[in-house]
């Protein structure tokens, strides 16, 4: 996520590969081009709005500043757009709230204000890093529904990062599952939930879904703990915890395999994870 925005300090991180957004390679952008890219083409929202917003300026001032950095527009017009944005993110009494400082708003309201700030220059890509994790259940669902609606209304593309599969299912068309720094499975939300193929996805869903949490029944668990990223096991990073691992899995990272329906899986044992086989094994 931070790599997409090139937020990682360049002298302390090594970056390889390419990031192409709107036909342009982000990794090769100049400083100036990057400043245009951030905000006007891609914007980001964070888990903790109180840290992401500036505490000494009102939210309205922060939105106006953002717009005027990117566009030649009068202060009054920028303010009018800020008001429009606040209405879009459904903040009640928006005029009054624009003049509020971040600490004066409630948690859900701050999260909406940060979304409004991110959308200030109508980006096409919104990166959302655990935006609902710190919120209460009743507020979380409001923000998820808001993101869904904004995505439709503005034709946004959203990358939504979360550890909560339930939240991902609420907003996502496609879901990519990551393990130890690699995408191990990618599919439409429906396919991923109904017929997961990577053993890690299978384990994750088994320990979480409603059907799995039946009283008095033991939860199916994935043994062990996530690996240390500084000290990854050779081969497939999931092999030490995998119920299907063979010797071959411990030699070399498995390739990404293409499956029907445009899905991909990074696993050597998918011949053993087809849904028919798994239900047969369970019986």
């Amino acid at each position, binding site marked *: 996520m931070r790599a997409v925005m090139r937020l990682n300090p360049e002298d302390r991180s090594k970056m390889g590969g390419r990031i192409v957004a709107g036909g342009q390679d982000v990794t090769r952008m100049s400083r100036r081009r990057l400043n245009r890219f951030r905000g006007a083409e891609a914007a980001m929202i964070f888990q903790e709005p109180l840290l992401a917003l500036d505490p000494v300026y009102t939210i309205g001032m922060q939105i106006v500043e953002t717009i005027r950095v990117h566009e030649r527009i009068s202060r009054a017009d920028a303010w009018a757009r800020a008001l429009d944005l606040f209405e879009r993110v459904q903040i009640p009494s928006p005029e009054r709230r624009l003049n509020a400082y971040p600490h004066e708003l409630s948690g859900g309201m701050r999260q909406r204000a940060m979304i409004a700030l991110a959308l200030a220059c109508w980006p096409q890509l919104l990166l959302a890093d655990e935006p609902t994790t710190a919120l209460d259940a009743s507020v979380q669902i409001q923000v998820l529904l808001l993101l869904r609606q904004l995505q439709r209304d503005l034709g946004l593309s959203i990358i939504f990062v979360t550890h909560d599969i339930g939240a991902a299912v609420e907003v996502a068309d496609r879901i990519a599952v990551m393990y130890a720094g690699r995408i191990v499975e990618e599919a439409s939300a429906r396919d991923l939930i109904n017929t997961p193929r990577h053993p890690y996805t299978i384990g994750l869903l088994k*320990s979480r879904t*409603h059907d799995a949490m039946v*009283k008095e029944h033991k939860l199916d668990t994935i043994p062990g703990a996530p690996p240390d990223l500084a000290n990854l096991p050779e081969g497939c990073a999931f092999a030490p915890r995998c119920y299907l691992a063979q010797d071959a899995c411990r030699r070399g990272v498995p390739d990404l395999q293409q499956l029907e329906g445009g899905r991909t899986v990074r696993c050597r044992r998918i011949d053993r994870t087809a849904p028919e086989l798994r239900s047969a094994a369970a019986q």
Partner: protein
Amino acid sequence: MSDATPLMTVKGLTKHFPIKGGMLGRTVSRVHAVDGISFDVLRDETLGVVGESGCGKSTTARLLMHLIAPDAGEIIFDGRRVGSRDMTMASYRSQVQMVFQDSYSSLNPRLTIQDSVAFGPQVHGVRRRDALQRTHDLLDRVGLDPARFAARYPHELSGGQLQRVNIARALAVRPRLIILDEAVSALDKSVEAQVLNLLADLKKEFGLAYVFISHDLNVVRYISDRVLVMYLGRVAELGRAEDVYAAPQHPYSAALLSSMPTGDPDRRVEKAALQGDPPNPIDLPGGCRFHTRCPLVGTMCRGTEPELARIARDHDVACHARIPGSGHRPESKERAA
């Protein structure tokens, strides 16, 4: 003492935190963190406590442990009032233990794992040799090989391992009730499931009761026999987990449960049940605390605070709309009439 008496009875427990202001540091207002809650914890049961942040879950946990002193109310443990001569604080604390959310900061970084776990029993008069023996047995029981882990320090362990240590430490004084305050919330999902299984096993093996506090409604349903729903320092609903989850009676419980993501891409949530955030526990609305967000609000809800009342077997609700003969009529109907 017969088995029918509750292990713990909480009556009218109240804690307000004063907010000081002005030049003289006078109390200008109060945070009504916990406002007169009463409930039982039965023997061998897991009581789940759910609610949103700021509703007083954690304050309740700390009051139960007597880590903070209540402003009013009493706790009766095993038929004896806590703090009386029959149930001194020392004897109470050896029977009730707590596990916190942050597994690392709840351990002393300068003590080895075995010293941390053996500390409690030694305070309660167990000889060091016996305490260490007990510690090794317990570490083994929670899935940590004593030969590998006993002499290590907290920073050398992962979050899941540390939480196992905290559970072993809670067990070391042989308690009968453990209060788990968001004890699995900070763990990775895959590790969380392992710890939940461990808690279920230990409960059976040692005949424990749990008060399980969490904001994760799925986990609470899985682990709890009964569920207590809190809203702004009060008990909104208390009942058997399957009843509350299948047919929540308080409109707040109903809204909270319908806010849970379904996890099913074909049945996404279409409408948020509640608008806005929970009100601030400093300036509480008058009458029923939920009336500002309630779909069933009636005139009486603005004036009178509902008391917790039994509406079915093992099912208590604090809502005028659910209490027969309360005189409640929803405003939507009043306007139509």
